[in-house]
């Protein structure tokens, strides 16, 4: 690349530094001036004078011209008709002139007609309003009753639920009391049985001791000086001991 650049630079330098003989020679200058004199005296060659854009050539077809002429004629006719037409009346003036008579002619009959219509429809309107009022009141009562029934049912359900709860509680208490009474009864019965047995045992011991005492008493030898109980027979004593 450097070689190419150097080559171009050298070639350019060589061409630029080419030895040029001094000139132009006088004969060449004279010949040139003569030729220039002929060229200056020679009339100028006609040149095409372009109007605005030298490269644009306008070729307009005929039908375009006719169409343009038709458009121009139509536009001119429209303008002439528009300008020659009578001037339209002013709307405000017309309104000011007509409005009072119209108001006078229209408002009074309309007022009377409205009064008649309202008088004829007064009773009907009243009945209609009463029916509407009743209907609305009925609907209101139905709504109230429905709402109150729902609230009453709710209260009743709550009351029944509370009663059931109280009964259940009462039954539980009653069962507990019965169970307590049964357990007390069993315990008292057992204590009573134990007491009776204890009494029986004690009575048996006491009777045995009494028996022994009696037997010891019977076996006791009465001193001589002592008389036996005449009132007691041996049979009676045996009977008592048997008892």
């Amino acid at each position, binding site marked *: 690349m450097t070689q*190419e*650049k150097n*080559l*171009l630079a*050298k*070639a*350019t330098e*060589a*061409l*630029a*530094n*080419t*030895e*040029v*003989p001094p*000139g*132009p020679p006088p004969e*060449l*200058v004279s*010949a*040139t*001036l003569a*030729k*220039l*004199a002929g*060229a*200056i005296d020679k009339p*100028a060659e006609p*040149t095409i004078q372009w109007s605005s854009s030298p490269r644009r050539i306008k070729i307009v077809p005929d039908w375009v011209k006719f169409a343009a002429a038709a458009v121009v004629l139509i536009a001119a006719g429209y303008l002439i008709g528009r300008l020659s037409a009578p001037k339209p009346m002013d709307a405000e003036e017309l309104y000011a002139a007509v409005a009072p008579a119209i108001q006078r002619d229209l408002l009074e009959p309309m007022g009377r007609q409205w009064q008649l219509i309202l008088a004829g429809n007064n009773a009907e309107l009243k009945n209609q309003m009463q029916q509407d009022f009743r209907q609305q009141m009925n609907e209101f009562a139905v709504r109230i009753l429905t709402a109150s029934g729902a609230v009453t049912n709710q209260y009743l359900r709550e009351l029944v639920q509370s009663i059931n709860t109280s009964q259940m509680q009462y039954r539980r208490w009653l069962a507990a009391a019965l169970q307590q009474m049964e357990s007390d009864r069993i315990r008292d019965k057992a204590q009573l049985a134990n007491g009776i047995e204890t009494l029986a045992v004690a009575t048996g011991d006491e009777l045995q001791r009494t028996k022994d005492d009696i037997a010891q008493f019977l076996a006791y030898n009465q001193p001589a000086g002592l008389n036996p109980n005449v009132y007691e027979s041996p049979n009676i004593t045996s009977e008592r001991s048997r008892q």
Partner: protein
Amino acid sequence: MQTVDWQVIVKQHGPIVWQTAYRLLGNYADTADCFQETFVCAVQIWRRQRVRNFPALLSRLATARAIDQLRQRARLRRTPNGGLRVNTDPSDLSAVPSSNPDPPKELQAAELAERLRSAITQLPPQHAEVFCLRYLNGMSYRSIANQLGIKTSAAGVSLHRARARLRMLLESAFVAEVDFGRVGKTPGQEESEVRL
């Protein structure tokens, strides 16, 4: 019409036209034709419109005419075997006194200049004009754009493309010449050149 003394114009700006044309064409006959055509064309333009900058106009016209003649010459020069032909007309060479004491270097410069002339003929006209006006006449971008009726940015773009195209053309010519030289030489000759 603008009043112009053409004798003054020719004498005052003739050297610029002459140098511009001769630098591109490289011989007397073509330069003389280009000189006359440039001024005739300037007169035609002067008759059509007002000219504000005669040096720039004449430089552009001379460049354009010279490039046209270069193209014609390139078309005539296209021989069946092709190739580049350096201007070795003895009359033209003797007409220009050389200031370079090194003949090989002078020949190389002449060859490069001729190759660049040939490459310029292959550029689009506008690119070629912009390149020549910029690098051979030293005109600014704005002057070039004013003379060619284009924007300054367009002038820059044209110049860039012209340079890129010229680089490619010079490189291709250089490569073709190297290949041609290798084909024409024997391996022994190549070795001897490398040793030298």
